[in-house]
């Protein structure tokens, strides 16, 4: 099977190039396996990966124009020739390895942890099953970055717009019955950039390998804001 892979080493190459590789497909082969095979053929090629089962979120890639995780994508489901590129919009460190710093900064900016005003109880803070259910579809995010790097609003303003991943996590804590910083969180999201650059394009929903829905979470944040404003 033919693979056309993005190659760029900023230290040596003046411009990026697309390099062709031929990989013999075995049964059940995932894209990550094919990339490992390419690495066997050509040691100078680099890409990130770790768990191999869609849990660590390190092998987000852009394949035939769509962001996905290499380790849970069957090679047989891909159209030949398979064009493999790094996640769009991020600075390339080398080949398929990109710099995700801004993505992590946006995550950090939403304070992704429980904030309590009351003194902490001796034991755990209890939640009803219904309250717990509200976190389903939110906490499963593995931070692969497929969503934010497919979001045009994040491409144009990665320094100011939080992006779908961080906003999904923002809602994850807004929706948590144990969190007590709702007003501060909402106030921090005001202004035209952090939240309101989202134009409901829904690329994020299309690509999330965990089938999460950042657009819906963003809608809920806006609703809550509106509720609190009137």
């Amino acid at each position, binding site marked *: 099977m033919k693979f056309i892979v993005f190659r760029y080493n900023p230290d040596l190459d003046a411009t990026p190039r697309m390099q062709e590789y031929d990989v013999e497909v075995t049964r059940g082969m995932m894209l990550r396996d094919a990339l490992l095979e390419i690495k066997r053929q050509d040691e100078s090629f680099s890409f990130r990966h770790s768990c191999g089962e869609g849990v660590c979120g390190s092998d987000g890639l852009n394949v035939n124009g769509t962001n996905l995780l290499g380790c849970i994508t069957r090679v047989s489901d891909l159209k030949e020739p398979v064009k493999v590129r790094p996640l769009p919009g991020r600075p390339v460190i080398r080949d398929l390895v990109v710099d995700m710093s801004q993505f992590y900064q946006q995550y950090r900016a939403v304070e992704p942890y429980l904030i309590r005003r009351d003194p902490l109880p001796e034991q755990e803070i209890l939640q009803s099953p219904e309250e717990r259910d509200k976190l389903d579809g939110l906490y499963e995010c593995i931070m692969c970055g497929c969503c934010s790097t497919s979001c045009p609003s994040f491409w*144009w*303003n990665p320094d100011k717009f939080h992006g779908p991943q961080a906003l999904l996590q923002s809602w994850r804590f807004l929706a948590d019955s144990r969190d007590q910083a709702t007003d501060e969180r909402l*106030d921090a999201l*005001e202004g*035209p*950039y952090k939240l*309101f*650059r989202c*134009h409901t394009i829904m690329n994020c929903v299309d690509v999330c390998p965990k089938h999460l829905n950042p657009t819906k979470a963003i809608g809920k944040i806006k609703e809550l804001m*509106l509720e609190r404003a009137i």
Partner: protein
Amino acid sequence: MSRQASGLRAWALQRISAVYLGLYIIYFLGVLLICPPDTYEAWKAFVGDPWGSMAMLLFFSSLLLHAWVGVRDVLIDYVHPMMIRVTLLTVFGIGLIGSSFSIAKAIFLAGLQS
């Protein structure tokens, strides 16, 4: 408009104006289909009717507000150098305000003459 309010307020304005635009367009198409004013006089009466002119003024206000939020969004997305952005915002702002005066004049004149 305070810096703080410009996110939620613009977004809410965009939604509300969109709803009114949709409703008015349906109403207007209905008028055109069912009893279209066929002469200049009939048009003048249609535009000059107190309720009709109110609805129409509101329609154009919504249209201009909606356009303003849209233009502002596009410029925030794509035009990053501050000077160019401010200049473009000013140009569009003046254009929209100018249009609103000319629309208001047309509607009020029709109201006065009918």
